[in-house]
């Protein structure tokens, strides 16, 4: 097999696969990093929100709903759920001492409950969701499954939309102001509590969307969030906790490392390599690649 063939049939498809996964990882990491950047909360149950999104897609498609409808419906359904979690759990310990530890433990407890609830409702087995589009498209001689291409496009549009929302709108300005100094923002009339709830809901909705988008590619099972969340956390740590640009760059970079590494070595070692890359970045930049939300 020649070099050109290697690129066309091995390397390029693998990069595309990595890109499709990367898009979803970026969406999940984006929610995590926004929640951390603004609320200063490590949301350990984020992986379960992603799993709920995927199960929602499964449930709605089993109920006969179109995939596109569930893609639009699920983030909307996640919003009240997220607001309840924020009000009932996070808000309760938010002003106590040791906020990092208490919110981390609280959301960790929630993740255990949610994961088991998914098991109770849907059973422990894996399910699959049919992709809304099938077939493949030929891009410069490289065969790309249509759905993956669509996923990448949709993800890119969503990420750009979020960036515009945070950096170019009044809501975004309020979010960044509250992240920079919540007391000052509150005294200038920003309804900080509301902004917190809205931002948390935005992050959770993003995880839900990622779940729906990835459901046709990977199987849907109750512990799927647990496997995914570590990668998302690595992305957030490497990118810089609370940095949107960092989440995008680190998300794409780490998933490419994972995808390309599994070409050369056993995929089993892909995770340790991603972790090693994270440790390497932290060695030189202990706070990640980019600055926190509201600080840059």
């Amino acid at each position, binding site marked *: 097999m020649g070099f050109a063939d290697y690129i066309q049939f091995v390397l390029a498809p693998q990069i595309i696969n990595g890109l499709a996964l990367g898009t979803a990882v970026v969406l999940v990491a984006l929610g995590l990093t926004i929640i951390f950047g603004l609320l200063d909360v490590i949301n350990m149950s984020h992986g379960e929100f992603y799993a709920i999104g995927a199960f929602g897609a499964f449930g709605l498609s089993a109920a006969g709903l179109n995939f596109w409808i569930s893609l639009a419906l699920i983030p909307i359904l996640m919003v009240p759920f997220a607001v309840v979690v924020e009000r009932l759990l996070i808000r309760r310990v938010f002003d106590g001492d040791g906020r990092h530890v208490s919110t981390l433990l609280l959301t960790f407890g929630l993740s255990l*409950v949610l994961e088991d609830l998914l098991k109770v409702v849907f059973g422990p087995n894996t399910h699959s969701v049919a992709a809304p589009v099938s077939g493949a498209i030929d891009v410069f001689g490289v065969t790309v499954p249509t759905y993956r291409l669509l996923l990448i496009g949709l993800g890119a549009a969503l990420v750009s939309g979020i960036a515009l929302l945070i950096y170019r709108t009044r809501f975004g300005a309020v979010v960044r102001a509250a992240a920079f100094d919540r007391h000052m923002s509150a005294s200038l009339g920003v309804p900080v509590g509301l902004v917190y709830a809205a931002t948390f809901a935005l992050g959770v909705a993003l995880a839900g969307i990622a779940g729906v988008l990835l459901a046709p590619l990977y199987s849907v099972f109750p512990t799927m969030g647990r496997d995914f969340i570590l990668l998302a956390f690595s992305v957030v740590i490497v990118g810089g906790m609370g940095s949107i640009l960092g989440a995008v760059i680190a998300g794409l970079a780490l998933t490419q490392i994972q995808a390309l590494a599994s070409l050369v070595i056993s995929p*089993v070692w892909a*995770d340790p390599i991603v972790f090693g890359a994270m440790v390497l970045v932290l060695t030189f930049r202990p706070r990640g690649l980019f600055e926190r939300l509201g600080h840059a």
Partner: protein
Amino acid sequence: MRDQQSKFMRASHVLMLFFLVAALILSAIGAGLGDAFYIRLGTEALIFAGIGLSVDLLLGFTGVLSLGQALYFGIGAYASALVLLRVPSFWLALVVAGSASFVASIFGGLIANRVRGVYFTLISLGLAQVAAKIVYNTRELGASDGIIGVPVVQVDLGLLSVSSDDPLGFFLLVLAIVVALYTILSYVLETPFGRILIALKANERRVPFLGYSVWGARMAAYVLAGVVAGLLGALDPMLRGFVSPELMSFMTSGNAVVSVLLGGVGTLVGAIYGSVFLVLLKSVIGSWSEHHQIVVGSMFMMVVLVLPRGVIGVIHPWLRTLLSRLPPSLDRPGSPVREVES
């Protein structure tokens, strides 16, 4: 010298003594009734209390939350199982497990202690997850099945010898080890080194102003915590006859953290009470439902929301007041008592 911290730990010592007496009485009753199940369950609880002690040393004293202490517990368990399959020696297994977790926690500490706060928590979690995944996929370590068929081992204690399949004998041995580790840890915390650890929790930035190395103290605490978890991990395959990658998993670490919270952070003894309570509770729930995660998770949330100081954390202040009312003659004789009020 007796400062607030010593007085604080005195209440823990009383609770530890109470625990020891209660454990001896209960195990004697259990043995009298010919029970093996509950004694073995108690042994398991004591073994898992080891990860709790390890978590509490880090969280309660140096102030960093590790979500990956099960890693060192698992390393201890695997090292012990591998030794026991070749040489049926209890002491060799203990030494190898201790050394393995010592070396591993130096490596882990070098990585995790580069960062602090929430980053430390996430890195410690990542380390354990990656290690668990490697073990899960390594055929030499039994992959997902783990290592089964770890033989029963005779523990030679000089005058007498205990077999690991004797429920009461092994329970008493594990109890003695846990009590010994508790004593060592509370002694270490009384030394100047221990005070640096507590200073780290109080204000890490000021510690270097006083001329102490933050990094060195954090490393030492991390390694000490790793070895404690590893030593008790070594006992697990002796009790159960097998090891599995589950031992290193997120769930094991998480359970240890919840047992520390349940018992009371920063009391050492809380980790032991909490672990016993959690293991018993899981066994009871497990007998009528396989969904014990819902209960553990809800308990996690309830403890954080309602009982942030834990059960022992509630009893503790009350006990401290009681102890301070004791007549001075019961105080440590000969020691110049200096009261340092906070």
